[in-house]
C-alpha cells in the first residue's frame, strides 16, 4: 500500500465520522429541549458538516479519480462508509445525543491536537481549523454530561443507561490496522495508543464528576472502520442520498 492510498483511506474515515455525526445532530434542528440548545446543536452540526466537506474534498484529491467531497458524501454504497459505529447510532433522547457527542468530542479533540502537527500540510491545516470548533463541542458536551449525571434522579438514570448502551462502541474509536501503521511511521498521524490512554483518563474523570459508572461488561462492537455497519446506517443514507439518487447528475 502506498502512502497516498493509506492517507485516502484515513481521511475518509475521519471525514465520514464528521459527516455521519453531523447528519445525526442536524436531526435535532427545531426540536431541541430549549431554544438555546437548539442553536447549540445546530451549530455543532454545521461545524461537523463543514469539517466533513474539507476532509472529503481532500480525500477526493488524494484518490485522484475526479471524485469531490459531494461525490464521496452522497454517492457511495453503505459498505464504503468508514465511520465509527458510535456516530451512526440514533439520537435517542437529548442525554444519549450528548453522551455520544461527548465520547466522540473527547477522542476528536485529542486526535486533532496531534493531527495539527501532522507532516501532511493539508491534513494539519484542516486539523488546526477543526480543533477550534471541536474544543467548544467538548466543553459543551462535557458540561452537559456532568449536569445530567448530577442533576435529578431521572436525568441521572437516563444518561447512565445511555452510557450503558453506547459504551460497547467506544473501543472501535482506537481501531488501527496497516493503514495507521504506515501513516504513523511517516509522522502523518499519531499513535492511537497514546490517545487511548489520555481519552480513558479524561472520560473517567468527567464520569466521576457526573456520578456515572462505566459499565463493567467488556463486550465491544466494531466494524465501522472496515465498512460493516449497524442497521441504522442504511436509513440514514437513504435520507442523506435521496436527492442525488432520485435526480442523478444534476447541479443544485
Amino acid at each position, binding site marked *: 500500500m502506498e502512502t497516498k492510498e493509506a492517507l485516502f483511506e484515513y481521511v475518509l474515515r475521519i471525514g465520514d465520522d464528521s459527516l455521519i455525526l453531523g*447528519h445525526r445532530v*442536524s*436531526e435535532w*434542528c*427545531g*426540536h*431541541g*429541549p*430549549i*431554544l*438555546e*440548545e*437548539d*442553536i447549540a446543536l*445546530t*451549530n455543532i*452540526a*454545521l461545524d461537523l*458538516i*463543514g469539517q*466533513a*466537506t474539507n476532509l*472529503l474534498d481532500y480525500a477526493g484529491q488524494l484518490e485522484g479519480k475526479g471524485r469531490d*467531497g*459531494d461525490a464521496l*458524501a*452522497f454517492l457511495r454504497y453503505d459498505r464504503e462508509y468508514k465511520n465509527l459505529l458510535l456516530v451512526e447510532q440514533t439520537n435517542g*433522547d*437529548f*442525554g444519549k445525543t450528548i453522551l455520544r457527542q461527548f465520547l466522540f468530542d473527547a477522542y476528536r479533540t485529542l486526535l486533532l491536537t496531534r493531527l495539527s502537527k501532522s507532516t501532511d500540510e493539508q491534513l494539519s491545516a484542516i486539523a488546526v481549523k477543526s480543533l477550534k470548533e471541536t474544543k467548544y463541542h467538548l466543553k459543551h458536551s462535557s458540561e452537559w454530561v*456532568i*449536569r*445530567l449525571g*448530577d*442533576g*435529578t434522579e*431521572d*436525568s441521572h438514570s*437516563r444518561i447512565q443507561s445511555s452510557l450503558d448502551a453506547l459504551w460497547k462502541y467506544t473501543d472501535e474509536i482506537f481501531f488501527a490496522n496497516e493503514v495507521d501503521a504506515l501513516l504513523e511511521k511517516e509522522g502523518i498521524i499519531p499513535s492511537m495508543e497514546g490517545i487511548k490512554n489520555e481519552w480513558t483518563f479524561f472520560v473517567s474523570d468527567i464520569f466521576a464528576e457526573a456520578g456515572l459508572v462505566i459499565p463493567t461488561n467488556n463486550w465491544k462492537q466494531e466494524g465501522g472502520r472496515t465498512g460493516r455497519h449497524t442497521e441504522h446506517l442504511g436509513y440514514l443514507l437513504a*435520507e*442523506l442520498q*435521496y*436527492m*442525488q439518487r432520485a*435526480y442523478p447528475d*444534476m*447541479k*443544485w
Partner: protein
Amino acid sequence: MKDLNIQELERRFQEKIDNDIKIEPRDWMPEEYRQTLIRQISQHAHSEIVGMLPEGNWITRAPNLRRKAVLLAKVQDEAGHGLYLYSAVETLGADREQTIDDLHTGKAKYSSIFNYPTTSWADMGAIGWLVDGAAIMNQVPLCRCSYGPYARAMVRVCKEESFHQRQGFEIISLLAQGTPEQKEMAQDALNRFWWPALMMFGPNDAESPNTLQSMKWKIKRLTNDELRQQFVDVTVPQAHMIGLTIPDKDLKFNEETGHYDFGVIDWAEFWEVVKGNGPCNKERVDARRKAKEDGQWVRDAAMAYAEKRKIQKAS
C-alpha cells in the same frame, strides 16, 4: 385627578411618537400599546421558531454539502431571531415561557405560511425567495418602529433575512435554469407558495381594524396592502427574469399606476389556515409542544444541578 394624569402621560407619550423618539422599556406607555406589542412581537418570535420546521424538514435531505451547510446556518439564524424577539417581549414584562405555552395551546398565532408543507427541495428556494422576501418587506419598516428594543432587534434580523432571501433566489434560479425535472420542481414550488406568500401581509386594509391605531403609534409604518403591492412589484420581474410563471392569470402591469395589478386573494383559505385548518397546523404545533415536553427532564436537570452548585458554593 388621576384621570388627568393619565391624559397627560398619554399626551406626552404620543408627542414622543410624533417626534420619532423611541419608547424604551422603562418609559410609561399605554396598556394597549404594551399589549399590542406583546402580541405582535411574540407572534413574530413564534413565526421564527415554527418557521424552523418546514425548512428543517429538508436539512437531512439537502442535495449537496454546501446547500446543507447553508440551510443549517439559515435555520440556526431563525432560532437566533426567535431568541432576540422573545427577549424583546420580556422587556415588556411578559414571560417567555408563558408566551410559548400560548403558542402550544393555540391561543397565540404565528405566520400562517408555515402551515404549508415543504414537499420538494425547490421549496427551500421558494421559501427563501418568497417567504423571506415578504418578511423583509414587512420587517424593514419595523426597523423604524416606535418601540426601541423591537426596532433594534429588527435591524439585525433584516440583515440576516436579506442573506436568506438571496440564498433562496439562488436555489430557485439554478433550478429554473436546470433540467426539465428541476424546472418543473421550481415552477411547482412557486405555484404552491405564491398565494400564501401574498397572504403573509395580512387582510386587506379595509378588513384590518388594528392597522390605524398601529400606524398612529408608529408600530406599523405601511399598511398591509401597500406592503403587498411593493412585494408583487419587486417579485414579478424576478420570476420573469428566471423564466418562471406567476400563477395568476389576472396579473398585469398597469402603465397608469406603474404597479402590477393582481388577482383576488382567496381569503376564505387564509382564514381557514389562521383558524387552524391549514395542511400542517397540527403537525407544526405538535412538534413544538413535543420538543418542550421531551425537554422537560433536561431543563429540570439543569435547574437541579445549578441549585446544587449554589448550595455547594454557599457552604
